[in-house]
């Protein structure tokens, strides 16, 4: 057990940096979860519209009422720059200014350029607000034709436009939505955090073990190479287990959830991904890069995989071509399993088994690649020694 103990000692010496990584990445994870959860609720229900009423007449107030129904009306922002930023980052969807003289022009039967509006993206939100405004103008005009005076037409339009169409939500029986949305969002971002923490912590320790002097000493000792590898793998697995368990337990505690039923599949899914992170660290360390390079590689692997596989950007938004490339990465299958459990795509036992199975296969492939690299390097080294 010397190798096992020595490796744990090295890991212990790296503990202060590990704590920094865990705490800060945990913070990032929590922020991601909170932000994403809010975003989902907001996106589905309301638009944020800046409204400035310079006319302040019954007609202008009627249109403000129409716009504010089911949406969030925001008071004018401090500056034009603030509005531009808000429109770009979509914290505001649309801005409407009702100019002076709006009521007079509307009463006179004008329908063109009645309001000054701002938006940056020709988005669905923009189309929705413009449709709403158009609907008001049309309805007001119709009531005026029917002989109502201006204030009556405004009031009647307002009443008529207050009636929403009935919407029925259909769900397949297999698509029971999960009630643990925030926990699932936390788990959606977990691959990034797990990869960062595991690679940043495990690689430097493994690199120390691969240093020439230590390897020479190990080679000339009585430890068999198989035993050496097994001890290294066991110590790494133990370390990964502790990290994974920390995130799983604290994640549940912070989201106020107890794991039951299908949530155990979420836990199993994350365990497989953590193990993949571990074997990836073992594989990278075989090439003994410097610590600085490991840091860059970590960011490259974690950010690259997470962007491509739908961790940061929802898989439903990504093109079919991108997703077919992403299928060659384990994070894609991790996210797919989560989407099934969350009810975003139809749940099937076969689909879950396939997702978990493919991740397990990735682990096996990387273990074999690591062993192969290790063997070829040692064989090459032995050969070089013989030749010398």
């Amino acid at each position, binding site marked *: 057990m010397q190798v096992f103990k020595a490796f744990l000692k090295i890991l212990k010496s790296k503990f202060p940096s590990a704590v920094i990584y865990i705490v800060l*990445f945990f913070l990032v994870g929590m922020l991601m979860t909170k932000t994403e959860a809010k975003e989902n609720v907001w996106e589905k229900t309301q638009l944020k519209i800046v409204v400035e009423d310079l006319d302040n007449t019954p007609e202008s107030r009627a249109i403000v009422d129409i716009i504010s129904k089911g949406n969030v009306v925001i008071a004018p922002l401090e500056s034009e720059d603030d509005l531009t930023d808000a429109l770009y980052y979509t914290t505001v969807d649309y801005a409407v200014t009702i100019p002076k003289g709006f009521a007079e022009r509307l009463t006179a039967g004008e*329908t063109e350029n009645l309001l000054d*509006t701002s938006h940056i993206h020709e988005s669905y939100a923009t*189309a929705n607000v413009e449709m709403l405004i158009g609907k008001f103008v049309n*309805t007001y*005009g119709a009531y005026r034709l029917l002989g109502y005076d201006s204030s009556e037409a405004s009031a009647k339009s307002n009443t008529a436009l207050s009636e929403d169409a009935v*919407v029925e939500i259909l769900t397949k029986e297999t698509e029971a939505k999960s009630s643990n949305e925030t926990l699932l969002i936390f788990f959606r971002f977990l691959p990034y955090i797990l990869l960062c923490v595991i690679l940043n912590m495990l690689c430097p320790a493994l690199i120390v073990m691969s240093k020439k002097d230590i390897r020479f000493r190990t080679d000339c000792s009585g430890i068999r190479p198989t035993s050496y590898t097994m001890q290294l793998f066991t110590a790494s697995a133990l370390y990964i287990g502790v990290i994974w368990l920390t995130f799983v337990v604290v994640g549940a505690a912070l989201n106020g959830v107890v794991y039951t039923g299908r949530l155990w599949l979420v836990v199993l899914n994350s365990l497989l991904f953590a193990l993949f992170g571990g074997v990836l660290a073992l594989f990278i360390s075989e090439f003994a890069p410097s610590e600085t390079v490991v840091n860059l590689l970590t960011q490259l692997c974690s950010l690259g995989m997470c962007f491509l596989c739908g961790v940061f950007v929802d898989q439903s*938004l990504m093109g079919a071509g991108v997703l077919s490339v992403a299928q060659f990465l384990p994070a894609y299958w991790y996210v797919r399993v989560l989407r099934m459990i969350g009810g975003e795509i139809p749940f099937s036992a076969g689909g879950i088994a396939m997702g978990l199975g493919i991740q397990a296969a990735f682990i096996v492939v990387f273990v074999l690649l690591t062993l192969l690299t290790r063997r070829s390097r040692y064989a090459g080294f032995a050969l070089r020694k013989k030749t010398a």
Partner: protein
Amino acid sequence: MFLHNFKYELKMVLRQREFIMWLMLFPIVLGTLFKVAFGSVYSNTDLFQSIPVAVVNTSGDEVYKQMFTALGEGDDATLSITYTDEEEAKELLFAGKVKGIIVNDGGLYLQVSGKGIRQSILQEVVSRCNLYRTVVMQAIADGDIPLMNSVIAELSKDVKACRDVSPTADNPDVYVQYFYNLIAMVAICGSLTGLHVATSSQANQSELGARKNFSPTPKFTHLSAALLGSCVAQGVSMILCVTFLRFVLRINFGGNLLLIYAAAVMSGVLGVTLGFFVGSIGRLKYEIKSAIMLSCSMVLCFLSGLMMGNIKGILAEKAPWINRINPVAIISDSFYCLNMYSDYRRFITKIVAMAIYIGVFTVLGVLLSRRKKYASL
């Protein structure tokens, strides 16, 4: 002596081939992945396109058909309509081929399988059709039947009530900010070279530091030469990064390209000086300092929107001071300002903020590393 040290610092940086290679490879690989992942997201999902919808007519009346036809016609049609029966409509809905089913059973109602902006628009369309019916029925009730055709024409009129006074953007694609943040991240990764400058001048951190402290060269001379050498190397990396993104991946950053290069080089210098400052604090080991530096960098990158594009907008609402002090946000904002604003007022503010950071980090780094003689460590 300064030039001599500067020359050797540049040689040293160039000989760290592995690090240089990864620093170059980093934006190339991530930029390519970003391009693959976000290349068509904006045009396919954010920009308005006809909403696919199934229409099921169980009542047999054709009252609404004219309205639907009008909504589904033309290049800028609101709807892309499939007339079908109930069973097939549900299949299309669950397969994601339509966003909703409009059912006409005398009145109109909507069936959807999820919530979202497209479904909200469909609800708006159905409400509009129902509204027309209400108004027409009111006209009949009021005995205004002769006006019926005029009322219908008024309700169906395509009005352009909104006068667009929107701010102009060279490139309104919101996903381009991921590339701004990628450049900012590469700049902040330069902090690792700055960290190396600081630790390689401290006798208790590296053998090179011990030799430098032992030599008769004044500390300020070798420190400033090393810092300048790292800044030059980082500046070159930044130029290559922007060149690759702009000319190979053809990312439209918007704004004046020369100023983008200038801002990128300056951000690289900011990254190096940040690393130099962190490296000069205390007597912690290089590993711990680099862990602090990297994890803090990632938090700053997250707050700037590298992982979630809308975080900067949310922070602008809830805690705008974070965006104002976060160096990564300042860097990405400088590119954003060039894209969004035709005048350079805000861009200059960002550049000045970067310059202040560079000055403060350099001065603090020098102050913290001075008087640390070999004997005092």
